[in-house]
């Protein structure tokens, strides 16, 4: 490379001058010529050449190889040996000094130029390699440090979430989190505080070292825990809405000083606690030896996110527990209320059965007495009135009984067992036939239909349905009553069908209301309580009942049952 600064080391002055001339011609700059090893080292250090041409055989104590080693120890400069020696021992020695070239005298200019260019190039490449190697080492070291830090942060976060699972309260959780942050950063003490609705700070956790270092009078200290004004060094993290490192609190413009007895703050790191971008509080750490750095900041910022997350989880958990407790309490209260209501209902039913019937009996009784004893003084119309009074007491007596029956069905205990419905229907049909042998009614009853339920209630239900069918087919010449199962909208359902008086579908819903009648009492007898009873019984078994019909063309009553799909699965009822 033209202009390269070259130092010549040659004890023969003529050879040195010749060499300098050649180099000059080749375009190199000869910065100096040394005649001995010692001078070579001295000149190299002073002139800082980019290349040294070194004769091995020099006068004096230090030969060329020794001089080259000495220069290497001081400078990073390539050395080329120029020598007439080519014996094996010298070559071996020279190799140990890592020369960049070895040119045997005598040599051509071209040979020298090539050796110089190769040496320069090699030296350049070496240097680059060394530099990139060093850089790599630095980067590996940095990355290792970073990974170590990240690992520590991760461990700290793990610790926080672990605490979230095990700590009972949010205070305990924050205290443990704070201790973790203090340990990670090497802080002496710290605080976790939350902004309250007034925009002031409430302390959630204060580290034990901090608390015990505190010499504040106890009442002041306790007072200073809650509802703190957001200001001073502590408030800086919240006010600035960003993390703050204050390593020289004495000169900090926001400094307001510490309360009496509070340990002196030598340095401070404050990181806001944020949720959905809103600052909700802060974690403050203080008095790390040597002050806080960016890695501390990074660590605490990451931990802050974990603390918010853990805190919110803990709060949700506590809230859930509270809700559960409330729910349990409400269930207990509601159960008690229902029990009271039930007792009241029973008392009411009891009093109805006693007290309402009592005056009715008087009205009925004395009307009869009147008729018996004073009948001869009344005309036909007067006696007719008495008959009406008596009939009315009769109806009301029936009504009271029906009402009581309905109330009893609603509150009766259920004793569940498998019940053969087909058999029940058959028994009821037979009873009706025996009671009214003059009526010709055909029953078609599907076999082996069983369900799980309370036999007594099921009997009452079927009696009501079949009594209705029996009653409303009274005026039909060929009465037919069918019982069986069918599918309605793909689901199994029982049905009881008759070809009697039927009803207007417009009133289908009303049918099941207590005291709802669709026919006049003169037409068909009854209080209108039967279907209401049926509905309650079906409902109590988790089923549904509904009716279809048409005036003058009969009615069909359907009912479903809980677990109706299991209807026929009970083998004990298969024949």
């Amino acid at each position, binding site marked *: 490379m033209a202009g390269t600064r070259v130092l010549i080391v040659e004890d023969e002055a003529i050879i040195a001058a010749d060499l300098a001339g050649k180099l000059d011609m080749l375009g190199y700059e000869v910065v100096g010529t040394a005649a001995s090893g010692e001078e070579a080292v001295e000149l190299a250090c002073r002139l800082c050449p980019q290349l040294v041409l070194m004769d091995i055989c020099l006068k004096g104590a230090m030969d060329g190889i020794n001089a080259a080693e000495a220069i290497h120890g001081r400078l990073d400069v390539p050395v080329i040996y120029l020598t007439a020696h080519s014996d094996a021992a010298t070559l071996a020695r020279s190799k140990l000094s890592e020369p960049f070239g070895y040119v045997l005298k005598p040599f051509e200019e071209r040979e020298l130029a090539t050796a110089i260019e190769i040496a320069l190039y090699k030296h350049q490449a070496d240097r680059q390699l060394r530099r990139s190697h060093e850089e790599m080492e630095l980067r590996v070291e940095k990355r290792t440090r970073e990974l170590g830090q990240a690992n520590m942060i991760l461990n700290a976060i793990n610790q926080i979430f672990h605490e979230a699972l095990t700590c009972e309260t949010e205070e305990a959780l924050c205290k443990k989190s704070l201790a973790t942050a203090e340990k990670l950063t090497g802080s002496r003490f710290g605080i976790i505080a939350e902004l309250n609705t007034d925009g002031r700070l409430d302390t959630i956790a204060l580290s034990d070292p901090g608390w015990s270092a505190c010499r504040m009078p106890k009442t002041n200290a306790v007072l200073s825990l809650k509802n703190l004004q957001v200001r001073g060094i502590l408030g800086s993290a919240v006010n600035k809405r960003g993390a703050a490192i204050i390593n020289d609190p004495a000169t900090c413009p926001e400094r307001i000083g510490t309360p009496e007895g509070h340990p002196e703050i030598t340095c401070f790191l404050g990181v806001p606690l944020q949720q959905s971008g809103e600052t909700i509080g802060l974690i403050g750490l203080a008095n790390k030896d040597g002050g806080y750095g960016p890695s501390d900041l990074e660590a605490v910022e990451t931990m802050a996110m974990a603390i918010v997350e853990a805190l919110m989880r803990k709060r949700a958990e506590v809230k859930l527990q509270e809700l559960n407790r409330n729910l349990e309490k409400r269930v207990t209260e509601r159960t008690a209320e229902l029990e009271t209501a039930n007792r009241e209902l029973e008392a009411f039913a009891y009093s109805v*059965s006693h007290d309402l019937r009592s005056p*009715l*009996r*008087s009205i009925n*009784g004395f009307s*009869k*007495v009147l008729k018996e004893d004073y009948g001869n003084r009344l005309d036909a119309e007067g006696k007719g009135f008495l008959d009406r009074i008596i009939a009315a*007491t009769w109806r*009301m007596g029936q009504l009271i009984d029906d009402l009581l029956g309905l109330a009893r069905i609603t509150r009766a205990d259920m004793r569940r067992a498998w019940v053969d419905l087909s058999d029940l229907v058959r028994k009821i049909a037979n009873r009706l036939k025996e009671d009214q042998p003059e009526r010709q009614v055909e029953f078609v009853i599907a076999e082996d239909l069983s369900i799980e339920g309370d036999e007594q209630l099921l009997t009452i239900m079927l009696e009501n349905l079949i009594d209705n069918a029996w009653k409303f087919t009274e005026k039909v010449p060929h009465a037919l009553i069918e019982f069986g199962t069918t599918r309605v909208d793909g689901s199994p359902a029982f049905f009881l069908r008759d070809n009697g008086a039927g009803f207007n579908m417009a009133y289908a819903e009303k049918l099941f209301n207590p005291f709802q009648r669709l026919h006049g009492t003169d037409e068909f007898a009854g209080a209108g309580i039967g279907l209401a009873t049926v509905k309650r019984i079906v409902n109590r078994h988790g089923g549904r009942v509904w009716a279809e019909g048409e005036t003058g063309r009969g009615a069909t009553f359907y009912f479903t049952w809980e677990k109706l799909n299991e209807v026929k699965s009970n083998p004990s009822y298969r024949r």
Partner: protein
Amino acid sequence: MKSKVILLIEDNPDDVALTLRALKKSNVLNEIIVVRDGVEALDYLFGTGKFAGRDTKNKPQLILLDLKMPRMDGLEFLRRLRADERTQTLPVVVLTTSCEDRDKIESYKLGANSYVRKPVDFSQFSEAVQQLRLYWLLLNEPPE
């Protein structure tokens, strides 16, 4: 021999009148003592209170007992009646408007001999009284 008395324990005067009429119509000739509640009934039986000095050897042939009464109700009266040696064998027919199972069960548990529900219809009641007379006054043989 003069027939023994019948003790009717009933607080409702209407019911008293109707019961007396039904008994009369059924040709019950026994003297009928009417008391308003359990306390008076015990007084009568044990010769205390307003019945102090009564000859308690003269025991009623039959007690007709209402359940719902002031001061001492029918069930409490039954309990005391059966707890006392002097009265534990007296035949008691509960005559009540209640059709509650628990009243019925409790009455029998406490030693009622019969439980008759007073129907609203007076004719039915008269029939029931007729039956009572037939059984308790004519057929039944109480221990002496």
